[in-house]
Protein backbone atom coordinates (compact mmCIF):
# COMPACT_ATOMS: atom_id res chain seq x y z
CA UNK A 1 0.00 0.00 0.00
CA UNK A 2 2.88 2.40 0.70
CA UNK A 3 5.09 3.60 -2.14
CA UNK A 4 7.80 4.91 0.17
CA UNK A 5 10.75 2.69 -0.72
CA UNK A 6 13.01 4.20 1.96
CA UNK A 7 10.66 3.25 4.80
CA UNK A 8 10.08 -0.12 3.17
CA UNK A 9 13.80 -0.84 3.25
CA UNK A 10 14.02 0.46 6.81
CA UNK A 11 11.43 -2.09 7.92
CA UNK A 12 13.15 -5.00 6.23
CA UNK A 13 16.62 -3.73 7.22
CA UNK A 14 16.91 -6.10 10.22
CA UNK A 15 16.31 -9.01 7.88
CA UNK A 16 18.85 -7.75 5.31
CA UNK A 17 21.52 -7.31 8.00
CA UNK A 18 20.73 -10.73 9.45
CA UNK A 19 20.75 -12.33 6.02
CA UNK A 20 24.18 -10.90 5.25
CA UNK A 21 25.75 -11.57 8.67
CA UNK A 22 24.23 -14.81 9.90
CA UNK A 23 23.31 -16.55 6.65
CA UNK A 24 25.12 -15.43 3.47
CA UNK A 25 28.50 -14.80 5.07
CA UNK A 26 28.60 -18.16 6.93
CA UNK A 27 27.27 -19.86 3.81
CA UNK A 28 30.16 -18.59 1.70
CA UNK A 29 32.65 -19.03 4.54
CA UNK A 30 31.78 -22.71 4.89
CA UNK A 31 32.27 -23.08 1.13
CA UNK A 32 35.76 -21.57 1.43
CA UNK A 33 36.55 -23.59 4.56
CA UNK A 34 35.65 -26.76 2.69
CA UNK A 35 38.78 -26.20 0.54
CA UNK A 36 41.03 -25.70 3.57
CA UNK A 37 42.82 -27.85 6.13
CA UNK A 38 41.60 -25.64 8.98
CA UNK A 39 41.62 -27.18 12.47
CA UNK A 40 39.25 -25.88 15.17
CA UNK A 41 41.95 -25.14 17.76
CA UNK A 42 44.08 -22.98 15.38
CA UNK A 43 43.70 -19.23 14.79
CA UNK A 44 41.62 -18.64 11.67
CA UNK A 45 44.62 -17.05 9.86
CA UNK A 46 46.39 -20.42 9.84
CA UNK A 47 43.90 -22.02 7.48
CA UNK A 48 45.72 -23.28 4.37
CA UNK A 49 44.21 -23.79 0.93
CA UNK A 50 43.98 -27.48 0.12
CA UNK A 51 42.27 -27.40 -3.24
CA UNK A 52 39.91 -30.31 -3.62
CA UNK A 53 41.67 -32.29 -0.89
CA UNK A 54 38.64 -32.61 1.41
CA UNK A 55 36.44 -33.67 -1.47
CA UNK A 56 38.85 -36.35 -2.70
CA UNK A 57 39.11 -37.53 0.92
CA UNK A 58 35.30 -37.81 1.00
CA UNK A 59 35.33 -39.92 -2.16
CA UNK A 60 37.53 -42.49 -0.44
CA UNK A 61 36.06 -42.27 3.09
CA UNK A 62 34.16 -45.41 4.05
CA UNK A 63 32.69 -43.69 7.12
CA UNK A 64 31.22 -41.01 4.88
CA UNK A 65 29.83 -43.57 2.43
CA UNK A 66 28.29 -45.49 5.31
CA UNK A 67 26.82 -42.33 6.81
CA UNK A 68 25.43 -41.28 3.44
CA UNK A 69 23.77 -44.67 2.98
CA UNK A 70 22.24 -44.59 6.46
CA UNK A 71 21.01 -41.03 5.91
CA UNK A 72 19.28 -41.94 2.64
CA UNK A 73 17.80 -45.06 4.21
CA UNK A 74 16.51 -43.00 7.13
CA UNK A 75 14.98 -40.30 4.90
CA UNK A 76 13.45 -42.72 2.41
CA UNK A 77 11.82 -44.77 5.16
CA UNK A 78 10.74 -41.90 7.40
CA UNK A 79 9.29 -39.35 5.00
CA UNK A 80 6.90 -41.57 2.96
CA UNK A 81 5.75 -43.50 6.05
CA UNK A 82 5.16 -40.34 8.04
CA UNK A 83 3.26 -38.60 5.24
CA UNK A 84 1.14 -41.67 4.48
CA UNK A 85 0.28 -42.15 8.12
CA UNK A 86 -0.47 -38.45 8.65
CA UNK A 87 -2.74 -38.49 5.60
CA UNK A 88 -4.48 -41.66 6.72
CA UNK A 89 -5.25 -40.34 10.21
CA UNK A 90 -6.33 -36.98 8.77
CA UNK A 91 -8.83 -38.89 6.61
CA UNK A 92 -10.16 -40.82 9.56
CA UNK A 93 -10.52 -37.58 11.48
CA UNK A 94 -12.10 -35.63 8.63
CA UNK A 95 -15.65 -36.79 9.23
CA UNK A 96 -18.36 -35.40 11.38
CA UNK A 97 -17.28 -37.33 14.44
CA UNK A 98 -17.75 -36.19 17.99
CA UNK A 99 -14.50 -35.38 19.76
CA UNK A 100 -12.47 -34.58 16.65
CA UNK A 101 -10.84 -31.70 18.56
CA UNK A 102 -9.77 -34.03 21.33
CA UNK A 103 -8.11 -36.49 18.95
CA UNK A 104 -6.45 -33.72 16.98
CA UNK A 105 -4.92 -32.42 20.21
CA UNK A 106 -3.86 -35.88 21.39
CA UNK A 107 -2.10 -36.59 18.09
CA UNK A 108 -0.48 -33.19 17.99
CA UNK A 109 1.13 -33.39 21.45
CA UNK A 110 4.01 -35.65 20.28
CA UNK A 111 4.92 -33.13 17.57
CA UNK A 112 5.21 -30.40 20.18
CA UNK A 113 7.37 -32.48 22.50
CA UNK A 114 9.09 -34.86 20.09
CA UNK A 115 12.08 -32.72 19.19
CA UNK A 116 13.11 -32.35 22.82
CA UNK A 117 15.96 -34.06 24.57
CA UNK A 118 13.52 -35.28 27.22
CA UNK A 119 11.67 -37.39 24.65
CA UNK A 120 14.90 -38.72 23.13
CA UNK A 121 15.93 -39.74 26.64
CA UNK A 122 12.54 -41.39 27.14
CA UNK A 123 13.03 -43.23 23.85
CA UNK A 124 16.32 -44.62 25.08
CA UNK A 125 14.58 -46.12 28.09
CA UNK A 126 11.57 -47.31 26.13
CA UNK A 127 13.85 -49.35 23.83
CA UNK A 128 16.47 -50.35 26.43
CA UNK A 129 17.06 -53.99 27.35
CA UNK A 130 14.75 -53.75 30.39
CA UNK A 131 12.66 -51.05 28.75
CA UNK A 132 8.96 -50.69 28.10
CA UNK A 133 8.87 -52.34 24.66
CA UNK A 134 10.73 -55.45 25.76
CA UNK A 135 8.54 -55.79 28.85
CA UNK A 136 5.48 -55.71 26.62
CA UNK A 137 7.09 -58.22 24.24
CA UNK A 138 7.86 -60.64 27.07
CA UNK A 139 4.38 -60.15 28.55
CA UNK A 140 2.91 -61.03 25.16
CA UNK A 141 5.01 -64.19 25.10
CA UNK A 142 7.72 -62.96 22.74
CA UNK A 143 11.47 -62.69 23.01
CA UNK A 144 13.08 -59.41 24.14
CA UNK A 145 15.09 -57.75 21.37
CA UNK A 146 18.33 -55.85 21.61
CA UNK A 147 16.85 -52.69 20.03
CA UNK A 148 19.74 -50.32 20.66
CA UNK A 149 22.56 -52.83 20.35
CA UNK A 150 21.63 -54.50 17.08
CA UNK A 151 22.48 -52.54 13.90
CA UNK A 152 19.37 -53.85 12.16
CA UNK A 153 17.03 -52.45 14.83
CA UNK A 154 18.79 -49.30 16.04
CA UNK A 155 17.88 -47.18 13.01
CA UNK A 156 14.30 -48.33 13.43
CA UNK A 157 14.10 -46.73 16.89
CA UNK A 158 15.29 -43.40 15.46
CA UNK A 159 12.80 -43.69 12.57
CA UNK A 160 10.00 -44.43 15.01
CA UNK A 161 10.77 -41.30 17.04
CA UNK A 162 10.24 -39.22 13.89
CA UNK A 163 7.11 -41.13 12.85
CA UNK A 164 5.69 -40.57 16.31
CA UNK A 165 5.64 -36.86 15.45
CA UNK A 166 3.27 -37.20 12.50
CA UNK A 167 0.83 -34.79 14.17
CA UNK A 168 2.07 -31.55 12.61
CA UNK A 169 1.85 -32.97 9.08
CA UNK A 170 -1.58 -34.37 9.96
CA UNK A 171 -2.89 -30.99 11.13
CA UNK A 172 -1.82 -29.48 7.81
CA UNK A 173 -3.50 -32.31 5.86
CA UNK A 174 -6.64 -31.93 7.92
CA UNK A 175 -6.82 -28.20 7.21
CA UNK A 176 -6.33 -28.99 3.51
CA UNK A 177 -9.10 -31.58 3.56
CA UNK A 178 -11.48 -29.19 5.25
CA UNK A 179 -10.75 -26.58 2.59
CA UNK A 180 -12.17 -28.80 -0.15
CA UNK A 181 -15.65 -27.45 -0.97
CA UNK A 182 -18.33 -29.98 -0.02
CA UNK A 183 -20.44 -29.20 -3.12
CA UNK A 184 -17.76 -30.97 -5.19
CA UNK A 185 -18.40 -34.17 -3.24
CA UNK A 186 -22.16 -33.74 -3.48
CA UNK A 187 -22.03 -33.20 -7.22
CA UNK A 188 -19.86 -36.30 -7.66
CA UNK A 189 -22.18 -38.41 -5.50
CA UNK A 190 -25.21 -37.31 -7.52
CA UNK A 191 -23.33 -38.29 -10.68
CA UNK A 192 -22.99 -41.75 -9.14
CA UNK A 193 -19.24 -41.70 -8.42
CA UNK A 194 -17.98 -44.30 -5.92
CA UNK A 195 -15.85 -43.55 -2.87
CA UNK A 196 -12.59 -44.65 -4.45
CA UNK A 197 -13.38 -42.69 -7.58
CA UNK A 198 -14.14 -39.55 -5.55
CA UNK A 199 -10.89 -39.99 -3.62
CA UNK A 200 -8.72 -40.24 -6.73
CA UNK A 201 -10.45 -37.61 -8.87
CA UNK A 202 -11.40 -34.96 -6.29
CA UNK A 203 -9.73 -35.35 -2.90
CA UNK A 204 -6.23 -36.30 -3.95
CA UNK A 205 -5.79 -33.72 -6.75
CA UNK A 206 -7.12 -30.90 -4.55
CA UNK A 207 -4.81 -32.01 -1.77
CA UNK A 208 -1.62 -32.03 -3.88
CA UNK A 209 -0.52 -28.49 -2.85
CA UNK A 210 -0.65 -29.54 0.80
CA UNK A 211 1.10 -32.84 0.03
CA UNK A 212 3.79 -30.87 -1.78
CA UNK A 213 4.26 -28.49 1.17
CA UNK A 214 4.47 -31.33 3.69
CA UNK A 215 6.81 -33.33 1.46
CA UNK A 216 9.32 -30.46 1.13
CA UNK A 217 9.24 -29.66 4.85
CA UNK A 218 9.65 -33.30 5.87
CA UNK A 219 12.51 -33.97 3.43
CA UNK A 220 14.43 -30.89 4.58
CA UNK A 221 13.86 -31.79 8.25
CA UNK A 222 14.66 -35.46 7.90
CA UNK A 223 18.03 -34.80 6.25
CA UNK A 224 18.93 -32.67 9.30
CA UNK A 225 18.00 -35.15 12.03
CA UNK A 226 20.49 -34.79 14.87
CA UNK A 227 18.96 -35.14 18.35
CA UNK A 228 17.56 -38.63 17.80
CA UNK A 229 20.75 -40.43 16.78
CA UNK A 230 22.97 -38.30 19.06
CA UNK A 231 21.01 -39.06 22.23
CA UNK A 232 19.30 -42.40 21.62
CA UNK A 233 22.10 -44.35 19.98
CA UNK A 234 25.12 -42.04 19.77
CA UNK A 235 25.35 -43.00 16.09
CA UNK A 236 26.01 -46.68 16.84
CA UNK A 237 26.03 -49.60 16.98
CA UNK A 238 28.60 -50.04 14.21
CA UNK A 239 27.62 -46.59 12.84
CA UNK A 240 24.21 -47.94 11.88
CA UNK A 241 22.57 -44.67 12.97
CA UNK A 242 25.46 -42.36 12.08
CA UNK A 243 23.41 -39.82 10.14
CA UNK A 244 25.27 -37.14 8.17
CA UNK A 245 24.47 -34.21 10.55
CA UNK A 246 25.93 -36.26 13.39
CA UNK A 247 29.08 -36.98 11.37
CA UNK A 248 29.45 -33.26 10.53
CA UNK A 249 29.12 -32.36 14.22
CA UNK A 250 31.69 -34.94 15.32
CA UNK A 251 34.20 -34.09 12.58
CA UNK A 252 34.06 -30.40 13.56
CA UNK A 253 33.65 -30.40 17.32
CA UNK A 254 35.05 -33.76 18.41
CA UNK A 255 37.91 -34.31 15.93
CA UNK A 256 38.38 -30.57 15.12
CA UNK A 257 38.60 -31.25 11.35
CA UNK A 258 36.72 -28.09 10.43
CA UNK A 259 37.76 -28.11 6.77
CA UNK A 260 36.55 -31.66 6.25
CA UNK A 261 33.37 -31.01 8.26
CA UNK A 262 32.65 -27.96 6.09
CA UNK A 263 33.03 -30.10 2.97
CA UNK A 264 30.64 -32.67 4.47
CA UNK A 265 28.13 -29.93 5.29
CA UNK A 266 28.30 -28.73 1.69
CA UNK A 267 27.66 -32.27 0.50
CA UNK A 268 24.56 -32.36 2.73
CA UNK A 269 23.49 -28.94 1.46
CA UNK A 270 23.84 -30.03 -2.18
CA UNK A 271 21.83 -33.19 -1.54
CA UNK A 272 18.99 -31.26 0.09
CA UNK A 273 19.13 -28.59 -2.62
CA UNK A 274 18.95 -31.29 -5.31
CA UNK A 275 15.86 -32.86 -3.74
CA UNK A 276 14.20 -29.47 -3.30
CA UNK A 277 14.93 -28.47 -6.91
CA UNK A 278 13.61 -31.78 -8.25
CA UNK A 279 10.48 -31.40 -6.14
CA UNK A 280 9.83 -27.85 -7.33
CA UNK A 281 10.61 -28.71 -10.95
CA UNK A 282 8.27 -31.70 -10.86
CA UNK A 283 5.50 -29.71 -9.15
CA UNK A 284 3.99 -28.49 -12.39
CA UNK A 285 3.30 -32.09 -13.42
CA UNK A 286 1.52 -33.25 -10.30
CA UNK A 287 0.62 -30.34 -8.02
CA UNK A 288 -2.83 -29.06 -8.86
CA UNK A 289 -3.35 -25.35 -8.26
CA UNK A 290 -6.98 -24.95 -9.22
CA UNK A 291 -8.34 -21.59 -10.30
CA UNK A 292 -10.63 -21.50 -7.28
CA UNK A 293 -9.70 -19.11 -4.50
CA UNK A 294 -10.87 -19.99 -1.07
CA UNK A 295 -13.41 -17.55 0.30
CA UNK A 296 -12.59 -14.93 2.88
CA UNK A 297 -9.25 -13.99 1.39
Amino acid sequence: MYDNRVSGYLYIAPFLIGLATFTLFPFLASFLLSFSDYQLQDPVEQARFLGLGNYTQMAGDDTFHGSLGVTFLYVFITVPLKLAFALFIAFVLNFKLRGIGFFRTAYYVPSILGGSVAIAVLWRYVFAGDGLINQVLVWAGGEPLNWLGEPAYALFTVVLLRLWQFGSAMVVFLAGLQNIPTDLYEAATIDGAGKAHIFFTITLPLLTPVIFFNFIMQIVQAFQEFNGPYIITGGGPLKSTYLLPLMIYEEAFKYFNVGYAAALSWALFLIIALFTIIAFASAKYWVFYGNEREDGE
Partner: protein
Amino acid sequence: MSLISAPRRDVAWIGRFSALLRYAVLIGVGLLMLYPLFWMVAASFKPNHEIFGSAGLWPQEPTMDGVVKGWRTGTEYSFATYLLNSFAFIMPKVLLTVVSSVLVAYGFARFRMPGKQLWFALMVATILLPKSVLLIPQYLMFREFGWLDTYLPLYVPCAFATDGFFVFMVVQFLRGIPPDMEEAAVIDGCNSLQVLWHVVVPVIMPAIISVALFQFMWSLNDFLYPLIYLSSVGKYPVALALKMAIDVTEATAWNQVLAMSTIALLPSLIVFFLAQKYFVEGITSGSVKG
Protein backbone atom coordinates in the same frame (compact mmCIF):
# COMPACT_ATOMS: atom_id res chain seq x y z
CA MET B 1 -20.61 -47.77 -5.87
CA SER B 2 -22.67 -50.27 -3.92
CA LEU B 3 -22.70 -47.92 -0.96
CA ILE B 4 -24.58 -45.31 -2.91
CA SER B 5 -27.24 -47.56 -4.40
CA ALA B 6 -27.83 -49.65 -1.26
CA PRO B 7 -31.24 -49.38 0.45
CA ARG B 8 -31.66 -46.67 3.06
CA ARG B 9 -31.56 -48.85 6.19
CA ASP B 10 -28.32 -50.47 5.13
CA VAL B 11 -26.73 -47.08 4.62
CA ALA B 12 -27.53 -46.06 8.19
CA TRP B 13 -26.13 -49.32 9.48
CA ILE B 14 -22.97 -49.03 7.42
CA GLY B 15 -22.63 -45.41 8.54
CA ARG B 16 -22.75 -46.43 12.19
CA PHE B 17 -20.32 -49.29 11.61
CA SER B 18 -17.90 -46.97 9.83
CA ALA B 19 -18.08 -44.44 12.67
CA LEU B 20 -17.36 -47.24 15.13
CA LEU B 21 -14.40 -48.38 13.06
CA ARG B 22 -13.07 -44.82 12.93
CA TYR B 23 -13.30 -44.47 16.69
CA ALA B 24 -11.56 -47.82 17.17
CA VAL B 25 -8.68 -46.71 14.93
CA LEU B 26 -8.44 -43.28 16.56
CA ILE B 27 -8.48 -44.59 20.13
CA GLY B 28 -6.11 -47.45 19.34
CA VAL B 29 -3.54 -45.23 17.64
CA GLY B 30 -3.93 -42.55 20.32
CA LEU B 31 -3.30 -44.97 23.18
CA LEU B 32 -0.31 -46.49 21.41
CA MET B 33 1.16 -43.04 20.87
CA LEU B 34 0.54 -41.57 24.28
CA TYR B 35 1.36 -44.67 26.33
CA PRO B 36 5.13 -43.93 26.47
CA LEU B 37 4.32 -40.47 27.88
CA PHE B 38 2.02 -41.91 30.56
CA TRP B 39 4.64 -44.53 31.33
CA MET B 40 7.26 -41.81 31.77
CA VAL B 41 5.09 -39.84 34.20
CA ALA B 42 4.18 -42.99 36.14
CA ALA B 43 7.82 -44.14 36.30
CA SER B 44 8.76 -40.84 37.97
CA PHE B 45 6.82 -42.00 41.03
CA LYS B 46 7.99 -45.63 41.08
CA PRO B 47 10.99 -47.24 42.76
CA ASN B 48 13.45 -48.43 40.12
CA HIS B 49 12.91 -52.16 40.60
CA GLU B 50 9.26 -51.59 39.79
CA ILE B 51 10.04 -49.78 36.53
CA PHE B 52 12.01 -52.80 35.33
CA GLY B 53 9.42 -55.19 36.73
CA SER B 54 6.22 -54.24 34.92
CA ALA B 55 4.94 -52.25 31.96
CA GLY B 56 1.86 -51.17 33.93
CA LEU B 57 1.15 -47.58 34.87
CA TRP B 58 -0.05 -47.43 38.44
CA PRO B 59 2.84 -47.41 41.00
CA GLN B 60 2.52 -50.28 43.50
CA GLU B 61 4.85 -48.56 45.97
CA PRO B 62 4.55 -44.86 45.11
CA THR B 63 7.63 -42.84 46.05
CA MET B 64 8.93 -39.31 45.56
CA ASP B 65 12.48 -40.62 45.61
CA GLY B 66 13.02 -40.20 41.86
CA VAL B 67 11.67 -36.65 41.80
CA VAL B 68 13.65 -35.53 44.87
CA LYS B 69 16.98 -37.08 43.83
CA GLY B 70 16.47 -36.14 40.21
CA TRP B 71 15.77 -32.52 41.13
CA ARG B 72 18.98 -32.47 43.18
CA THR B 73 20.83 -33.83 40.08
CA GLY B 74 24.28 -35.41 40.20
CA THR B 75 25.90 -31.98 39.81
CA GLU B 76 26.49 -29.06 42.16
CA TYR B 77 23.40 -27.32 40.76
CA SER B 78 19.77 -28.26 41.25
CA PHE B 79 17.40 -28.71 38.33
CA ALA B 80 15.98 -25.25 39.11
CA THR B 81 19.23 -23.71 37.89
CA TYR B 82 18.92 -25.46 34.54
CA LEU B 83 15.29 -24.41 34.16
CA LEU B 84 16.18 -20.79 34.92
CA ASN B 85 19.12 -20.99 32.48
CA SER B 86 16.74 -22.12 29.75
CA PHE B 87 14.44 -19.19 30.37
CA ALA B 88 17.38 -16.77 30.56
CA PHE B 89 17.96 -17.04 26.82
CA ILE B 90 14.50 -18.14 25.66
CA MET B 91 12.79 -14.98 26.88
CA PRO B 92 15.02 -12.52 24.95
CA LYS B 93 14.89 -14.92 22.00
CA VAL B 94 11.09 -14.91 21.88
CA LEU B 95 10.87 -11.14 22.35
CA LEU B 96 13.47 -10.34 19.66
CA THR B 97 11.92 -12.83 17.25
CA VAL B 98 8.46 -11.29 17.61
CA VAL B 99 9.67 -7.70 17.19
CA SER B 100 11.95 -8.37 14.22
CA SER B 101 9.49 -10.70 12.45
CA VAL B 102 6.64 -8.20 12.71
CA LEU B 103 8.74 -5.26 11.47
CA VAL B 104 10.12 -7.22 8.51
CA ALA B 105 6.79 -8.82 7.64
CA TYR B 106 5.14 -5.39 7.70
CA GLY B 107 7.77 -4.11 5.29
CA PHE B 108 7.26 -7.06 2.93
CA ALA B 109 3.48 -7.06 3.05
CA ARG B 110 2.70 -3.34 2.88
CA PHE B 111 5.49 -1.57 0.97
CA ARG B 112 6.23 -1.42 -2.71
CA MET B 113 9.98 -1.28 -3.29
CA PRO B 114 12.46 -2.38 -5.93
CA GLY B 115 14.07 -5.76 -5.28
CA LYS B 116 11.34 -6.90 -2.90
CA GLN B 117 10.67 -10.08 -4.85
CA LEU B 118 14.31 -11.10 -4.66
CA TRP B 119 14.60 -10.50 -0.90
CA PHE B 120 11.37 -12.32 -0.24
CA ALA B 121 12.51 -15.29 -2.32
CA LEU B 122 15.82 -15.33 -0.42
CA MET B 123 13.93 -15.31 2.87
CA VAL B 124 11.85 -18.30 1.84
CA ALA B 125 15.03 -20.04 0.64
CA THR B 126 16.62 -19.63 4.09
CA ILE B 127 13.75 -21.69 5.52
CA LEU B 128 14.93 -24.61 3.41
CA LEU B 129 18.64 -24.02 3.97
CA PRO B 130 20.08 -26.76 6.24
CA LYS B 131 21.42 -25.24 9.42
CA SER B 132 24.50 -27.48 9.49
CA VAL B 133 26.03 -25.68 6.49
CA LEU B 134 26.06 -22.45 8.55
CA LEU B 135 26.94 -24.02 11.88
CA ILE B 136 30.75 -24.06 11.66
CA PRO B 137 31.36 -20.51 10.33
CA GLN B 138 28.79 -19.14 12.80
CA TYR B 139 30.69 -20.85 15.59
CA LEU B 140 33.99 -19.36 14.39
CA MET B 141 32.39 -15.94 14.05
CA PHE B 142 30.98 -15.97 17.59
CA ARG B 143 34.35 -17.22 18.85
CA GLU B 144 36.00 -14.16 17.26
CA PHE B 145 33.38 -11.97 18.97
CA GLY B 146 34.33 -13.58 22.30
CA TRP B 147 30.77 -14.81 22.75
CA LEU B 148 31.51 -18.48 23.50
CA ASP B 149 30.04 -19.78 26.74
CA THR B 150 27.49 -16.94 26.80
CA TYR B 151 23.85 -16.91 25.71
CA LEU B 152 24.51 -14.20 23.09
CA PRO B 153 24.96 -16.57 20.09
CA LEU B 154 21.65 -18.18 21.03
CA TYR B 155 19.48 -15.07 20.87
CA VAL B 156 21.24 -12.14 19.19
CA PRO B 157 20.64 -13.48 15.63
CA CYS B 158 16.90 -13.47 16.40
CA ALA B 159 16.97 -9.65 16.50
CA PHE B 160 17.62 -9.84 12.73
CA ALA B 161 14.66 -11.99 11.69
CA THR B 162 16.92 -14.98 10.95
CA ASP B 163 14.01 -17.41 11.27
CA GLY B 164 12.40 -16.89 7.88
CA PHE B 165 9.58 -19.20 8.86
CA PHE B 166 8.21 -16.68 11.35
CA VAL B 167 8.44 -13.73 8.95
CA PHE B 168 6.65 -15.84 6.36
CA MET B 169 3.94 -16.72 8.86
CA VAL B 170 3.23 -13.06 9.69
CA VAL B 171 3.37 -12.02 6.01
CA GLN B 172 0.80 -14.69 5.15
CA PHE B 173 -1.41 -13.46 7.96
CA LEU B 174 -1.08 -9.81 6.86
CA ARG B 175 -1.94 -10.69 3.28
CA GLY B 176 -5.26 -12.03 4.48
CA ILE B 177 -6.16 -8.69 6.04
CA PRO B 178 -7.56 -5.94 3.81
CA PRO B 179 -5.56 -2.70 4.35
CA ASP B 180 -8.71 -0.53 4.59
CA MET B 181 -8.31 0.31 8.25
CA GLU B 182 -4.65 1.15 7.77
CA GLU B 183 -5.45 3.42 4.84
CA ALA B 184 -8.05 5.20 6.96
CA ALA B 185 -5.44 5.73 9.67
CA VAL B 186 -3.02 7.18 7.10
CA ILE B 187 -5.68 9.64 5.94
CA ASP B 188 -6.14 10.60 9.58
CA GLY B 189 -2.48 11.56 9.64
CA CYS B 190 -0.71 8.54 11.15
CA ASN B 191 2.74 7.63 9.88
CA SER B 192 3.52 4.01 9.00
CA LEU B 193 5.02 3.22 12.40
CA GLN B 194 1.96 4.57 14.21
CA VAL B 195 -0.26 2.56 11.87
CA LEU B 196 1.79 -0.54 12.65
CA TRP B 197 1.55 -0.04 16.39
CA HIS B 198 -2.06 1.15 16.72
CA VAL B 199 -3.81 -0.63 13.87
CA VAL B 200 -1.79 -3.60 12.57
CA VAL B 201 -0.42 -5.09 15.78
CA PRO B 202 -3.85 -5.48 17.46
CA VAL B 203 -5.23 -7.14 14.32
CA ILE B 204 -2.35 -9.58 13.84
CA MET B 205 -2.20 -10.50 17.53
CA PRO B 206 -3.12 -14.15 16.82
CA ALA B 207 -0.13 -14.44 14.45
CA ILE B 208 2.14 -12.75 16.99
CA ILE B 209 1.05 -15.19 19.68
CA SER B 210 1.66 -18.12 17.31
CA VAL B 211 5.18 -16.86 16.58
CA ALA B 212 5.94 -16.42 20.28
CA LEU B 213 4.58 -19.86 21.19
CA PHE B 214 6.44 -21.72 18.43
CA GLN B 215 9.69 -19.94 19.18
CA PHE B 216 9.25 -20.73 22.88
CA MET B 217 8.69 -24.46 22.22
CA TRP B 218 11.44 -24.80 19.66
CA SER B 219 13.95 -22.95 21.82
CA LEU B 220 13.11 -25.16 24.77
CA ASN B 221 13.78 -28.20 22.57
CA ASP B 222 16.89 -26.70 21.02
CA PHE B 223 19.91 -28.85 21.72
CA LEU B 224 22.63 -28.51 19.09
CA TYR B 225 23.30 -24.77 19.52
CA PRO B 226 23.57 -24.83 23.34
CA LEU B 227 25.71 -27.95 22.92
CA ILE B 228 28.35 -26.20 20.82
CA TYR B 229 28.23 -22.73 22.42
CA LEU B 230 28.00 -23.46 26.16
CA SER B 231 30.80 -25.14 28.05
CA SER B 232 30.29 -24.39 31.76
CA VAL B 233 27.80 -26.66 33.46
CA GLY B 234 26.45 -23.73 35.50
CA LYS B 235 25.10 -22.19 32.28
CA TYR B 236 23.53 -25.35 30.86
CA PRO B 237 19.88 -25.23 29.86
CA VAL B 238 17.52 -28.13 30.60
CA ALA B 239 18.27 -29.89 27.31
CA LEU B 240 21.99 -30.18 28.09
CA ALA B 241 21.36 -31.06 31.74
CA LEU B 242 19.21 -34.01 30.69
CA LYS B 243 21.82 -35.28 28.25
CA MET B 244 24.38 -34.99 31.02
CA ALA B 245 22.06 -36.84 33.42
CA ILE B 246 21.91 -39.97 31.22
CA ASP B 247 25.71 -39.93 30.93
CA VAL B 248 26.39 -39.34 34.62
CA THR B 249 23.57 -40.95 36.60
CA GLU B 250 24.20 -44.56 37.50
CA ALA B 251 22.61 -46.85 34.93
CA THR B 252 19.83 -48.05 37.22
CA ALA B 253 18.42 -44.72 38.46
CA TRP B 254 15.78 -44.51 35.74
CA ASN B 255 13.18 -42.90 37.96
CA GLN B 256 15.41 -39.86 38.54
CA VAL B 257 16.05 -39.28 34.85
CA LEU B 258 12.46 -39.93 33.82
CA ALA B 259 11.18 -37.61 36.57
CA MET B 260 13.43 -34.82 35.26
CA SER B 261 12.32 -35.52 31.69
CA THR B 262 8.72 -35.17 32.86
CA ILE B 263 9.48 -31.84 34.54
CA ALA B 264 11.39 -30.67 31.46
CA LEU B 265 8.30 -31.27 29.32
CA LEU B 266 5.88 -29.48 31.68
CA PRO B 267 6.45 -25.90 30.41
CA SER B 268 5.76 -27.00 26.81
CA LEU B 269 2.69 -29.01 27.82
CA ILE B 270 1.20 -26.21 29.91
CA VAL B 271 1.74 -23.61 27.20
CA PHE B 272 0.35 -25.95 24.56
CA PHE B 273 -2.84 -26.73 26.43
CA LEU B 274 -3.44 -23.09 27.32
CA ALA B 275 -3.06 -21.93 23.74
CA GLN B 276 -3.56 -24.85 21.39
CA LYS B 277 -5.70 -23.02 18.87
CA TYR B 278 -2.75 -20.74 18.07
CA PHE B 279 -0.62 -23.74 17.25
CA VAL B 280 -3.11 -25.20 14.84
CA GLU B 281 -3.63 -21.78 13.20
CA GLY B 282 0.09 -21.10 13.09
CA ILE B 283 1.08 -24.39 11.51
CA THR B 284 -1.61 -24.26 8.84
CA SER B 285 -1.15 -20.58 7.94
CA GLY B 286 1.98 -21.16 5.91
CA SER B 287 0.66 -24.09 3.92
CA VAL B 288 -3.05 -23.94 3.27
CA LYS B 289 -3.95 -20.27 3.15
CA GLY B 290 -2.76 -17.96 0.40
